[in-house]
């Protein structure tokens, strides 16, 4: 047996040992990584669940935002439409009041307005103001209210009267405009109810 064959055997042995060592190392590494994988499985699952829950939460938040804003937007558009229609009704009513006949029933209305004004102000010593259309109606009624005089100044209104005490310290607005203004919220409600059926 020559030197070469002994050398070959030695090399082969070393190779075998190294191979076994490498295989053993690989097996250990495989085992260790399988162990690590098994260990991290539960924490990974927890992490996965957490990410999923956060994503779900974020999605719900976004859904809430989008739906909330869309609902509000459509509600606001509806409000504007209703208001536009209410405004049209008011304009028509005002036009009707402007052209209303100054007949007997209107005269009765003015009479009740004067009486109401005197009761509210607490004195019959009053100056009554009205517009040019109602001047003759008011003038004809003042004889029923001693102490009341018609002012030469005319006011700009749809109809009705404005009174003030003779010393000028108290005023009471009983024009149709003022009454319409005071009842505006109730009239708006009635109109809106009719729109909605």
């Amino acid at each position, binding site marked *: 047996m020559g030197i070469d064959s002994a050398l070959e055997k030695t090399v082969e042995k070393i190779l075998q040992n190294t191979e076994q060592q490498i295989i053993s190392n690989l097996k250990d590494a495989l085992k260790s990584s399988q162990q690590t994988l098994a260990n991290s499985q539960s924490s990974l699952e927890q992490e996965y669940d957490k990410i999923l829950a956060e994503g779900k939460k974020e999605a719900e938040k976004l859904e809430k*935002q989008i739906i909330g804003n869309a609902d509000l937007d459509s509600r606001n558009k509806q*409000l504007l439409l209703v208001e536009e229609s209410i405004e049209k009704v008011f304009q028509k009513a005002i036009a009707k009041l402007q052209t209303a006949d100054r007949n007997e029933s209107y005269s009765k209305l003015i009479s009740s307005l004067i009486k109401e004004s005197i009761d*509210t102000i607490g004195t019959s010593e009053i100056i009554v103001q009205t517009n040019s259309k109602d001047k003759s109606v008011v003038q004809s009624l003042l004889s029923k209210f001693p102490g009341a005089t018609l002012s030469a100044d005319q006011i700009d209104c749809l109809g009705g009267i404005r009174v003030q005490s003779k010393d000028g310290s*108290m005023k*009471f607005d009983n024009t149709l405009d003022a009454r319409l203004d*005071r009842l505006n*919220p109730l009239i708006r409600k009635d109109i809106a109810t009719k729109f909605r059926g």
Partner: protein
Amino acid sequence: MSAQGGVQYSKIAEIKGPLVVVDGVESVAFDELVEIQTTDGQRRLGKVLEVGNRKAIVQVFEGTTGLSVSGTSAKFVGKVMEMPVSEQVLGRVFDGLGRAIDGLPEPIADKFIDINGAPMNPEQREYPRDFIQTGVSVIDGMLTLVRGQKLPIFSGSGMSHNILAAQIARQAAVVGTSDEFAVVFAAIGVQYSEAEYFRRSLEESGALKRSVLFLNLADDPAIERIITPRVALTVAEYLAYDLGMHVLVILTDMTNYAEALREISAAREEVPGRKGYPGYLYTDLSTIYERAGRLRDKKGSVTQMPILTMPSDDITHPIPDLTGYITEGQIVLGRDLFRQGVYPPVNILMSLSRIMKDGIGEGRTRGDHQEISNQNYDAYSRAQEVRALAGIVGKAGLTGVDLKYLEVGDGFEKEFLTQGVDENRTIDETLGLQWKVVSLLPKNELTKVKDKFIDQYYQER
């Protein structure tokens, strides 16, 4: 409401601060609404504070700037101030007097309600129960808000109370029920930037749909601030008792309200009480706070969260002092925590929700809620003592258990207390965090919780 209206008087005897004295009046009633007309035809609202000798003292909400004795007239409307209410108020923004400022028409009223509210019949009151989830851990976990409760936040100038208020308004909800929930938010004397923040915050989160905003700005007349909480509460009562909703009312900042009250009192030359506030401050505040509650046979509830800034962080100042007498606990924001960058900087050792026990527990939140909350309170309190001790003897002089308590203190502030401005935590998440904090201690240190809960929730490290 009638078409009749009221008499207009033109004899103004005196204008003094926010007050106008009208002479020669007849049949005028206390608290009656008054329309002040200026020389240029502008209208301002006010109310009668005092009547006698044919004189009426009128408090002008929008201030008396620009008014003169000659040319000004006062119309006594013949009714008290009313707020038009309907379901349409939801999603709307109003000024401090209840007028729409969002570019939309005034809501069509279902009812007109006296803003002073009708006093609740004590016999008809129901004890506050059930929990409102704010999504803020420190509140839900340790200072639980209960439906029908009044729980104020005591803050200091410059602290993050408004951010917290907006977060609560966005996130608050009633859980485990299909009952409707609404938030009425009244900003009293806030800066424009803050008002914009509140508005944007609710709009962007989609929470505006179920909210009503009342904004009285810092440059609005101070007197308007007297009205703002009242109109807000009137709307809240309507939503709660007529529409059956659970309503959370957030009032910020009640200190500005009290300042306005002091201004009027000084103008009326009343005998001042503590720090110049009127002697009736307690009574006046109670007319606001006592509007929180639940009524028998009514589905809804009104819960209040007033926020006030304590001048010089002084908790003995008349405003927090008197507020504390009326409300059911308080949430105190701490300057030290705020400086450390903790949000929300709630100092739990000075805070308390007196009726928390009635809103939590099995069937409401979770069976261990009260006990784990007590344990956290106990541990954090001990941590504060240990911190003080460590400042004197140093960490080297502390025992092993003491060091654990130091860890608990840090964990409590960093993990449980600290929360993102947009972070909405569920009650289970909150309770989980509370367990995580106390799990830093050995099991034998957990003396406030039952063993069964320790077995179930203790988090081994």
